[in-house]
C-alpha cells in the first residue's frame, strides 16, 4: 500500500460568473430571470411585499393562515380539482412567509412551467377563501403550531425574540404562536390578501430562457393585479445592552438543553455585512469554527453548535444555537461565552480567516447549482436592492477581506456582555447550577 504523501496543489480555477440576468416588464409587473441553459427543470417564485411585519398585533400568523388557505380552492375550481390540476403537472406550491416578504415558489419541467405559474397565480390572486375553509385552516394551524412547539427549540426561539425585540410585531414569533393564530379572523385573512397579494410583485424565474417565454410567464403572474409596491420602512433603532440575562424555559425530563444565546445586530444593509459574516463564520459558521471545534470536537458536549447573524431589512440579530447534553449545560455555556469573548476581544487569525473567506466564496458556486437556488439568490437581490453584479462582487469582497477588517467587525458587532441566554431544558436539574455559575440573572420564561 502506498499513499501519496504530498497534498496536491490547486488546479486552474474557472472565472466565477452568476447566470445572465434578463428583465421583462409586462402586465404591470417585472419578471427577473436567470438563464440556465440545458436545465430540464425550471423554477419560478412570485415575490410579494406582504411579509409578516404587516400583521396586526395579537394576530401574528395571519399571513401563514392565508398561505395555507390558498389551495383550498379558487374562484374556478374546488380544492380537490386544484390539487389534481397542479400535481398533474408534477408541481406543488411552496408558499412561505418571512419578515420582509410573502413568496410562492413552484418548480416544474421547463415545458410545464407556464401552466404551473398560471395555476399558482390562480391560487394567489383569486383564492376562494370561503370563511368555513379559512377557519378550518386556522384551527389546523393552531394544532400544527402546538405540534411544533412540543419539540425543543420553538419556545426557546420565541423567548429570545421577545427579550431582544420587546413588544410589537418583531418581538413575536415569525409565524405567531398558538394563541395569536387562534385569534386570527376570516376578516384578518381577507384583508391581508386584499392589501398584500393583489399587487403585482416581482416574478423570479430560473431556467433555460431559450425555451421559456418570460412575457407569457409575466402576463400569467400579473393578470388582474392592481396597485404598486409599498414604500419600504427604515431600520429599527436599537442599542447594545450592557448586562446579561439568563432565561430558563422548563422542559421536564429533557435529555438535552437547547441553548439560544443572542443579541441584536445591524440590519442587512449594514456596510459591515461581509466582515460580520466572516467573523461569525470563524466563530460558529464553519465545521472547524471555534465553537464547533471546542464544544463538539474537543468536549463532545453536542452534536453541533452554530453561531450566525441573521439580517432582514429592518433588523438583525446574532445567535448561537445548540443542543447539549443536560449534565453539561453549564460547562457548555461557559465555554461558549469564552469563545464569543475571545473573538470579540482578540479578533480572528489569518489561518481561520482564510478558511472562512474561501468557504463563503466557494459556496457561491457550490450552493447555486439548481434553478431553485438561483431563484432564491434573485430574491435576495430584489429584497435588498442589490445590483445584478452583486454575487461576483460579493465573492471578491469575501476573498479580499483582511484580518483587521474582520477583527474590527467582531469587536464592534459582538456584544458578549449584553447577551440574552435562553436555556430550554429540565429546570429541576439545571437551575441551581445555572444560578451558581453567575452568568447573569436567572429568570423563568412565562411558558
Amino acid at each position, binding site marked *: *500500500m*502506498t*499513499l*501519496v*504523501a504530498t*497534498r*496536491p496543489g490547486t*488546479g486552474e*480555477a*474557472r472565472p466565477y460568473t452568476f447566470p445572465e440576468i434578463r428583465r421583462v416588464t409586462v402586465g404591470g409587473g417585472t419578471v427577473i430571470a436567470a438563464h*440556465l*441553459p440545458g*436545465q430540464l*427543470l425550471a423554477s419560478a417564485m412570485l415575490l410579494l411585499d406582504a411579509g409578516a411585519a404587516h400583521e396586526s398585533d395579537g394576530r401574528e400568523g395571519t399571513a401563514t393562515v392565508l398561505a395555507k388557505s390558498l389551495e383550498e380552492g379558487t374562484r374556478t375550481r374546488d*380544492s*380537490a380539482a386544484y*390539487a*389534481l390540476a397542479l*400535481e*398533474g403537472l*408534477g*408541481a406543488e406550491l411552496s408558499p412561505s412567509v418571512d419578515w420582509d416578504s410573502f413568496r410562492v415558489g413552484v418548480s*416544474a*419541467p421547463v415545458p410545464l412551467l407556464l401552466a404551473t405559474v398560471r395555476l399558482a397565480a390562480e391560487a394567489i390572486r383569486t383564492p376562494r377563501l370561503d370563511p368555513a375553509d379559512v377557519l378550518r385552516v386556522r384551527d*389546523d394551524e393552531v*394544532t*400544527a403550531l*402546538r*405540534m411544533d*412547539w*412540543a*419539540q*425543543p427549540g420553538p419556545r426557546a426561539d420565541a423567548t429570545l425574540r421577545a427579550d431582544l425585540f420587546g413588544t410589537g410585531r418583531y418581538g413575536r414569533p415569525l409565524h405567531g404562536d398558538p394563541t395569536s393564530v387562534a385569534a386570527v379572523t376570516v376578516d384578518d385573512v381577507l384583508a391581508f390578501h386584499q392589501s398584500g397579494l393583489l399587487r403585482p410583485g416581482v416574478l423570479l424565474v430560473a431556467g433555460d430562457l431559450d425555451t421559456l417565454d418570460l412575457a407569457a410567464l409575466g402576463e400569467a403572474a400579473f393578470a388582474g393585479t392592481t396597485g404598486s409596491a409599498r414604500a419600504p420602512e427604515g431600520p429599527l433603532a436599537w442599542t447594545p445592552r450592557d448586562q446579561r440575562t439568563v432565561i430558563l424555559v422548563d422542559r421536564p*425530563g*429533557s*435529555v*438535552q438543553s437547547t441553548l439560544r444565546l443572542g443579541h441584536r445586530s445591524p440590519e442587512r444593509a449594514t456596510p459591515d455585512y461581509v466582515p460580520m459574516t466572516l467573523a461569525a463564520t470563524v466563530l460558529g459558521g*464553519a465545521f*472547524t469554527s471555534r465553537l464547533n471545534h471546542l464544544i*463538539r*470536537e*474537543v468536549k*463532545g*458536549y*453536542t*452534536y453541533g453548535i452554530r453561531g450566525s447573524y441573521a439580517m432582514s431589512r429592518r433588523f438583525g440579530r446574532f445567535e448561537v444555537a445548540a*443542543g*447539549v*447534553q443536560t449534565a453539561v449545560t453549564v460547562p457548555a455555556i461557559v465555554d461558549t461565552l469564552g469563545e464569543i469573548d475571545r473573538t470579540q476581544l482578540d479578533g480572528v487569525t489569518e489561518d481561520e480567516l482564510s*478558511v472562512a473567506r*474561501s*468557504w463563503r466564496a*466557494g*459556496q457561491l*458556486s*457550490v*450552493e447555486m*447549482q*439548481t*434553478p431553485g437556488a438561483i431563484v432564491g439568490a434573485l430574491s435576495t437581490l430584489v429584497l435588498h436592492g442589490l445590483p445584478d453584479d452583486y454575487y461576483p462582487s460579493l465573492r471578491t469582497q469575501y476573498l479580499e477581506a483582511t484580518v483587521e477588517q474582520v477583527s474590527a467587525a467582531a469587536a464592534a458587532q459582538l456584544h458578549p456582555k449584553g447577551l440574552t441566554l435562553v436555556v430550554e431544558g429540565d429546570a429541576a436539574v439545571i437551575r441551581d447550577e445555572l444560578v451558581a455559575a453567575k452568568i447573569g440573572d436567572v429568570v423563568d420564561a412565562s411558558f
Partner: protein
Amino acid sequence: MVSEDRSSPVVCVNLWYDVGSRHEPAGQTGFAHLFEHLMFEGSVHVKKTEHMRLVQGNGGSLNATTNPDRTNYFETMPSEHLELALWLEADRMGGLVPALTQETLDNQREVVKNERRQRYENVPYGDAWLRLLELLYPPGHPYHHPTIGSMEDLNAAGLDTFKAFHQQYYVPNNCVLTVAGDASPAEVFALAEKYFGQLAPVAGIPAAPSAHLTGPATTPARETVSAAVPAPRIYLSHRTHPFGTAGYDAITVLATVLGNGRGSRLYQRLADGKRIAQPDYIGSYGVDLAHAPAPLIITATAKDGVDVAELEDGLSEVIAGLVTEPVTDEELSRAKALLTTAWWRSLSTVGGRADTLGRYATQFGDPATVAYRLPQWLAVTADDVTEAAAYALKPESRVTLTYLPEEKA
C-alpha cells in the same frame, strides 16, 4: 465513474462503501455509523480536524451518511480542488488506522450519543423508526436494529474493533468512486490511478448476515407507546419488495398515489374529506432499502378531539381501497408527474447525480441501470398498483405503532 457536466464550475466526489449497519453483529450496533464519524478525524497525512478544514477552506461542502445498507462520503468542491478531494479520500481509505486514537474514539462516541439524544430521544415521536424496524424485521435480521445503535453498545465500543472494521470494509474492492461535474473522464481516471491505484484489494470481505425473508409478515404486530407527544399518531408499516425490483417500483407509485401531496388519497379522504387527520402530518413513503423487502410507512396524526381508533379505521379503509377501488388514470398520471419532477430534482446537483450513480453501481453492479428507474415508474399500471397492494398491504402483515399522549401526573 465519471459524469461530466460543465454547467457549474463545481465537482462532486462521492464514495459508496458497501457496508452499513446490516453488517453489524450483535453487541456492536451503531458501529458502522460511529465509524463514519471517525473517518473525519484524520489519517496518515491528514491531521485531526484537517479534513474538514481543507474541504471547507477551499470552498467545499461535505458530509457522509450511514444507513442499514451502506455508508457514503461526498464533497462538492469548486472544480480546481478535484485533486485535493481525491487525495483526501484516498488517504482515509488507505491510511486511517494508524491515525485512530482512543481520544478520538472517546470524543466521537460522545458526539454520536448526543446525535442520538438530539434526533431520537429528545423529540416527540423521535424513536418511531427505531421501534418500527424491530417490529418489521425479526431478531437476527440485519435490518432489525437501527443504524444509530444502542447507548449500551456505543459505550462498549473498543478501538481495536474499529481498526478491524476499517481493514475489513474500507478497501478499494468494496467501494465505488463517482465524480460528477466539471471534470473530464480522462482527467479523473488518471487522478484516481495516481491516488488510489496503489491501494491493494483485500480478499474475504465479511458478508452481512442473510437478509432473506420469504415475503410479507404473516402475523400482525402492534405496539402502543404512551409518551410526551402532543397528539395521537399512528404509523402503519409493511415489508414490501426490495428497492430496485419491479415490485418496489409499483410500491413507489402506490406510495405516491396513497400519500404524497394534497391530491393523494390519504389527504383527500382523511385530512380533507372526513377531516380526522392533521393536514401537515399525513402521508406515505417507501424507505429505499435494497437487501431485503423494504418498508412502506403510512402515517397520520389525529386532529383535536378525534379518537385514535377512528383514525386507524380511516387509514385501514383507505389502504383496503387500494385493492377494491382501482387507481384511476388521473391518480396514476398525477403520481407519475410528481415522481418525474422529484427524479429530475434529485439529479439537478452534481452531488445528487454522483450519489445516484454510486448507488446503482454498488447495488446493481451497473450504473447504466439508473436510466431504467424513471421509465419503470412510468410503466407501472393501475393493475400493478392493485397487485402490489394485495400482496404487501394485507392487514395480517401490518405493523401498527401508535403514540398516545401520556396522562399528565
